């Protein structure tokens, strides 16, 4: 370039050069603002859904609290009158749902400021439910299976993760077993009292309590089956239920086929064949 000594204008010094589009910082700013808006909207939606989750958990907790209160009242009213009328209705089925939702939050949204409060409320509901089950077991022939579990989320409990998997598995396998889990480090007097009742300390976590027995450390699924013999009878019950359900389904199928058979008289012979094979299954 021959006129380097002339700094202004910098370009267009030769015919082949052209003046570049000037650097427009405004456009950079606009692009930044649009991008930032998209980002902020995403953060807003994320918060919105997080709040919805908290609301969802709160409404489940309200439902459980209502269930428990209702059961207690029912209990007081009837005394020992009819165990039969309570055994199904008192069991709040929402506790397992709540447990899985709270553990999802513990894992994915651990910084949520509502979480400790939710866990405290949950722990209280668990204790109330546990006591109610105990009462029920004493007064009625109905024998609920309850497992208490204390864990820590700190790094001082290497086996807690494994234990949690075992209990989640049991929860899925035996929905009728009541598994109550407590964060050992939750600052709640009722949980502290539970710790005193079972004389636990934080060096022995995880701790699992079945009946009056306290177990420390990791317990495998097989060992859990030994510790809770009721699980075996539940296995049998499940198998029997499954067989009954299969039988009922087969019966239903054959009855629908026989109705279709009566409406279509033409294919009656072929239908009879299929009905007989259906029922033999």
């Amino acid at each position, binding site marked *: 370039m021959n006129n380097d000594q002339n700094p202004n204008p910098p370009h267009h010094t030769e015919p*082949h050069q*052209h003046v570049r589009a000037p*650097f427009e910082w405004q*456009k950079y700013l606009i*692009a930044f603002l649009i991008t930032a808006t998209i980002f902020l*909207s995403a953060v807003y939606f994320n918060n919105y859904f997080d709040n919805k989750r908290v609301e969802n958990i709160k409404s489940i907790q309200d439902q459980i609290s209502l269930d428990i209160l209702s059961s207690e009242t029912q209990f007081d009213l009837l005394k020992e009158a009819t165990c039969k009328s309570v055994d199904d209705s008192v069991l709040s089925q929402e506790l397992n749902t709540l447990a899985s939702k709270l553990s999802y939050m513990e894992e994915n949204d651990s910084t949520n400021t509502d979480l400790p409060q939710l866990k405290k409320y949950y722990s209280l509901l668990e204790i109330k439910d546990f006591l109610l089950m105990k009462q029920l077991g004493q007064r009625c022939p109905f024998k609920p299976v309850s497992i208490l579990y204390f864990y820590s989320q700190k790094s001082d409990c290497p086996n807690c*993760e*494994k*234990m949690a*998997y075992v209990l989640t598995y049991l929860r899925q396998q035996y929905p009728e077993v009541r598994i109550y889990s407590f964060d050992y480090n939750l600052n709640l007097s009722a949980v502290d009292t539970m710790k005193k009742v079972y004389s636990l300390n934080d060096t022995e976590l995880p701790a699992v309590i079945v009946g009056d027995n306290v177990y420390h450390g990791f317990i495998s699924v097989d060992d859990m089956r030994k510790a809770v013999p009721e699980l075996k009878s539940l296995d049998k019950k499940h198998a029997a239920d499954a067989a009954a359900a299969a039988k009922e389904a087969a019966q239903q199928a054959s009855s629908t086929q026989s109705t279709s058979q009566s409406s279509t008289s033409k294919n009656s012979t072929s239908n009879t064949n299929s009905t007989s094979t259906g029922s033999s299954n």
Partner: protein
Amino acid sequence: MDISIVPILATITGSVTYVALFGALYFQVFLLITFIEKRKTFRAEEHFLDKRNSDKKLGISNESLDYPSATVIVPCFNEEKTVEGTIRSLLQLDYPKDKLKILIINDGSKDNTGKVIDTFSGNPQIEIYHKENGGKYTALNFGLSKTHTEIVGCLDADSYADSQALKIIASYFDDKSVMAVTPSVVINHSRNVLRQIQKAEYNLGIFVRKVLGMIDAIHVTPGPFSFFRREVFEIIGNYKHAHNTEDLEVAFRMQKHHMKIVNAHKAFVYTVGPNTVKKLYRQRVRWTSGFLANLVDYREMIFKKKYGDLGMLILPMTIFTIGTTLIVIGLSIINFVISLHKEFVKLESVGMQLKMPSFNFDWFFMNTSAIVIIALGLWLLTAAVIVSGQRIGTGKTRITIDVFYFLLLYSFIAPFWLIKSVYNTTFSKTAPWR
């Protein structure tokens, strides 16, 4: 494994992913608002092309006066199978015969390429040269030494030009400030998934190159059918080896000399995309390594206001994108290992669970983190850009399956050549020519 490291790692991964997503989103938003800003110029350009076309039909224009004399250089090395098709596509170009010269340079082929091209020797438009093998850039320079037409371009012997391509490209040279014109490169035969992915990628490229042309930021003049004023090479010199990517380097060099490069989006050239992952990987490693090596050579252009958007945004952005992508890949691998370890612990604790837990949909367990929402937004924007590229080129606005293939699979295959290219650039000594 110490549990306490997991949340820290998650935080780092999250932050880097946010930064990477912000950059990627910013770039796309920038391209889109540039396109919207320049839409009037774009429409005028389309109108001009239409008018020129109809004038020709009405016989208003005198073709021989209208079009510049042109040369197409076809460098070939072991291309006996495709070179004939390439030459035929050139002979079928709709361009005044007295103004078009075709130079076929046999760069020391070991196969029958020489014999195949010699069959064209009687054609008055065609000149054939055989030379010692020296690499593509030497073949191009040899061709340049044999021609003095107003514009000169090149066509790789594995590509085919659309019959209207040269006319459209030539009309862009009406503007005296235009020094080079790039075409729209389209993938031919896109039946298998890998080529479908490339089809979407090339459509994305059509849009990006068009917008880059609008802001004087084109940094590659693709080997197939880019055209230059002959004087470009007289001013800035001939092709260089340039880490096997001479088509990238010449664009960098032109930009450094403030020469105007524009994109002729309606001028199609068809190229055959690699049909296997291995071939694609090799091609991309060559491109990306070449780009990075040339970027290192021309690093003084980065963050220089006098190079406009190219210096201030486009070049820095490529470094940023490659850098953040590599970090995100690294962290993803670590996180993947951690989650594998978790699964292992689970397996160790409860054994194989044959009974799958029943799946019932609950929005509660849906991932609604900001990162997922932003990534979804980025996907939608990318799909929009691909469709825009298709619309700019072919005029069709249709979402076809290749867009989905691209969005689903590209981010899984691109990291491989990215890593290898960065490795090449970092550890192999690049040969400086200055």
